[in-house]
């Protein structure tokens, strides 16, 4: 069911979307928190536009409908795990129907900083049922390519310490109290997220990229692979 043609639906077709009309490309960058996804998305966008492609970039919780509500709910630290999963799913559906599909119709390259896979991995890491969340998210379109920036937890910690300099409540899974402090909880939670993403890797046909490589090298790898996508058609 999962190795389907790009821009097919995984299993639940959205009303009013004719696949034949979708002319663009859908490219997903996945990976855990702090792995360096947004840097790559920004560079890819600049490169693709330079090549003459129109690009839409989008990411989790940025939608017009639910983005604001999610960030407010997270401020209050009162979000239960199932509620959080479904709130993110709402936001995803809103962006899929109102941003991604229209952009694909217009022939854009849609570059998305995470897709349903992070949403599902976070849910699974919090102990929710894999089959349940997979079916909930089955209205998603199959991307042309899914690049999974894979890192070990210790590398993520280095990035957090050198980057922001502090652990984030949600990125540490502190809502579930996986450990007695932010560090311990971060380690256990992110390990669960990574494990969940690893398990999806084959099922969903991820292209795995070692995030320990230099950002320049990663960018080159991505460029090479994406260039092939354009040649293929």
């Amino acid at each position, binding site marked *: 069911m999962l190795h389907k043609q790009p821009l097919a639906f995984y299993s639940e077709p959205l009303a009013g979307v004719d696949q034949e009309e979708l002319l663009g490309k859908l490219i997903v960058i996945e990976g855990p928190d702090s792995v360096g996804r947004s840097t790559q998305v920004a560079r890819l966008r600049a490169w693709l536009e330079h090549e003459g492609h129109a690009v839409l970039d989008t990411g989790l919780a940025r939608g017009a409908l639910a983005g604001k509500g999610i960030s407010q709910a997270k401020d209050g630290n009162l979000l239960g795990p199932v*509620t959080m999963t479904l709130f993110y799913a709402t936001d995803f559906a809103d962006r899929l129907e109102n941003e991604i599909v229209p952009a694909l119709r217009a022939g854009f390259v849609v570059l998305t900083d995470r897709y349903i896979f992070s949403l599902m991995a976070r849910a699974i890491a919090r102990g*929710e049922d894999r089959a349940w969340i997979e079916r909930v998210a*089955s209205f998603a379109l199959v991307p042309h390519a899914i690049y999974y920036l894979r890192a070990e937890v210790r590398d993520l910690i280095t990035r957090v310490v050198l980057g922001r300099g502090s652990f984030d409540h949600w990125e540490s899974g502190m809502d579930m109290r996986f450990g007695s402090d932010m560090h311990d909880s971060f380690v256990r939670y992110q390990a669960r997220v990574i494990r969940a993403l690893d398990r999806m890797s084959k099922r969903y046909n991820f292209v795995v990229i070692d995030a320990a490589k230099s950002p320049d090298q990663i960018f080159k790898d991505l460029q090479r692979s994406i260039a092939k996508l354009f040649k293929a058609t």
Partner: protein
Amino acid sequence: MVEGIDGSGKSTQLSLLSQWLRSQRIAVAFSEWNSSPLVRETTRRGKKKNMFTPVTFSLIHATDFADRLERYITPLLKAGAVVCADRYAYTAFARDVVRGVSRKWVRNLYKFAVRPNLAFYFRVPLEVAIGRILGGRNAIKYYEAGMDLELSRNVEESFRIFQGRILDEYEAMIQEVGFHVIDATGSIEEQQQQMRRIVMEELGANLRNGVLRASQGDIDAAQAAASVL
């Protein structure tokens, strides 16, 4: 919990029932469809600007339900309270399907919901329900009338078609859910008597022993006795 189309009188009946339970010193809590404070702003934004699609409409209501379940209903049930819910997942099974999501998908979506101890369905002919709605309120709202489905440009006509299809979905799920069907054309008093009789038949033993009133017992015992009506 109670289900039925708009104007079936279910809320009135549930309120009478909860008063009756309270009068017997049973700890009763109440939860209403689409009432989570966490999700309210988002729902309001979506409705005001007509931003919803069938899928986002379905998902935001499931989010609302999950929030009430996680933060309110489940802890109360563990405490041994009787929770009266005005509409439950079955509202989504009916309404969201009429909006165009698949029956299978929406049933999976609500898999995290606890199964209610008792489910009442207030059956009423469409014309009776519409008469009650139009008599009591001045304006039917956009989504209530299913105007997003473009069934008709006339609000009343759209409401009629939309509620009629919801009614069909309810009727079709009676067996699946195990609804206790209440004839909602009867007098308020008759319907209430019938509800109370069913509650006593189905949950009488639980209500005498397990619920929060004599709540000293351990959590497991309380949980076993907890009820969602």
